[in-house]
């Protein structure tokens, strides 16, 4: 199984192709939308490329959950993610780093959770699953 550094470098290469960005623009903490300019259709492209690159299957909505809360008031109130919403996020995206987000969980900042590091951790977890070895 490749180590974290190898996964990171493959993830970077994948993002360079999918988003047409230069290597120096990509940092572990880069957000896909804010820093790297990803648009919605790019997420599907990234998923396809990761599947090919790592030989894994990424079920729909697993890496990039779409509209997680669907405007459910239990999860979102006054533009902020509730405590219940946060635990839902932890369950749905265990590979995301929520520490910063939890300090000010505004729903519009949710796209900042999608970072290069997040993808790397997701792939690492995925490659560790018995079915992918």
């Amino acid at each position, binding site marked *: 199984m490749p180590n974290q550094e190898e996964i990171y470098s493959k993830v970077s290469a994948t993002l360079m192709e999918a988003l047409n960005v230069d290597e120096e623009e990509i940092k572990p903490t880069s957000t896909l939308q804010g820093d790297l300019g990803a648009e919605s259709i790019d997420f*599907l492209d990234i998923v396809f490329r990761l599947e*090919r690159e790592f030989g894994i299957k990424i079920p729909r909505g697993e890496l990039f959950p779409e509209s997680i809360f669907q405007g459910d008031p239990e999860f979102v109130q006054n533009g902020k993610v509730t405590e219940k919403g946060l635990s839902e996020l932890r369950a749905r995206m265990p590979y995301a780093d929520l520490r910063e987000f939890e300090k000010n969980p505004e729903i519009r900042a949710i796209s900042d959770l999608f970072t290069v590091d997040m993808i790397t951790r997701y792939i690492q977890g995925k490659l560790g699953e018995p079915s992918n070895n």
Partner: protein
Amino acid sequence: MRWIWIDRFLEFHRGKSARAIKSLSMAEDYFGDHFPGYPVMPGTLILEGLAQTGGVLVGEVNDFHEKVVLAKIPWARFYREALPGEQLIYDAEVLHLRPEGAVVGGKVTVDDELIAEAEVFFAFLDKSSSPQAFGDQNFVFSGELKHLLGLVKVLADRTG
């Protein structure tokens, strides 16, 4: 406007690959303006032909029930211009196919000379967006694109 940029399919292997032909006629309108005295097929239209070849290829897999739209061209390279009187051969190969979309790799040749190549990314609207956001009617495969495959069958029957 007739927005159909391939003349006919030459080969069709369901869910795998397709080959189509496009003959460039000086009668096509755009040659008058692109460019006056120097007619060359616009690169965007070369890509459109490739996207139509690939789009029919991936749309046919689900019997044209999905609304297949060109979502993105991650990269494209053009090696030389295409001129009136030439025949373009479009070769499209499915690289990735999932319920939400597909990726097709395509090459465009004239007399075996590679003149352009690209990767084309298609989204299947109903599966990649909110359900029914685009309604029931399939506005992508409503007419001539779908009929192109019928033409293949007619010709195949004639030639046995």
